[in-house]
């Protein structure tokens, strides 16, 4: 057990825990937008942590794990933004606790 393997294992454990939180958030939140919030944040940090953990524990994987991290960091927020806009435009009502709505009509005057 060298030092980098220990660091990698710790990062992997943190990432797995955030994955678990993402699943729980997806299940418990009341409407689509809140679900997307929980799911996107938790899985993005979970992927960062997990993949970086693998890259640190195995230095020969490091370059390719960096590419995976860059790809997920670019695509995951974009995907959730597009999905949030699509669900708003397709007429999904946000939950009753929503206070403010300044996005009426899809932002088109």
């Amino acid at each position, binding site marked *: 057990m060298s030092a980098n393997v220990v660091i990698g294992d710790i990062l992997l454990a943190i990432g797995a825990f955030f994955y678990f939180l993402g699943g729980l958030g997806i299940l418990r939140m009341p409407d689509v937008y809140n*679900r997307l919030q929980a799911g996107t944040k938790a899985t993005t940090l979970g992927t960062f942590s997990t993949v970086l953990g693998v890259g640190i524990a195995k230095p020969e994987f490091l370059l390719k794990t960096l590419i995976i991290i860059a*790809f997920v960091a670019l695509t995951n927020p974009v*995907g959730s933004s597009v999905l949030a806009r699509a669900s708003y435009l397709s007429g999904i009502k946000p939950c009753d606790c929503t206070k403010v709505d300044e996005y009426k009509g899809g932002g088109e005057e």
Partner: protein
Amino acid sequence: MIVLFFTLIGIGVILAFIRVIIGPTSPDRVAALDTMNVMLTGLIVVLAYVFNRSIYLDIALVYALLSFLETIVISRYLEGRK
């Protein structure tokens, strides 16, 4: 240690999958599916680490690309026409 990772990720995937099944509307299902796909990408990377095969990382990248494309295509469909 490895068993712990797989247990946590597996529970997360199962929770997301419950939402895929019960989700009241289709954006709910797609959101849960997107979350599940990112989790599975991480899972493939962990598998590459466990089996010590660098070629699995390519598969993880292809999976991430295809899941992103799936989310975009379904969103563009759901937006509908004006």
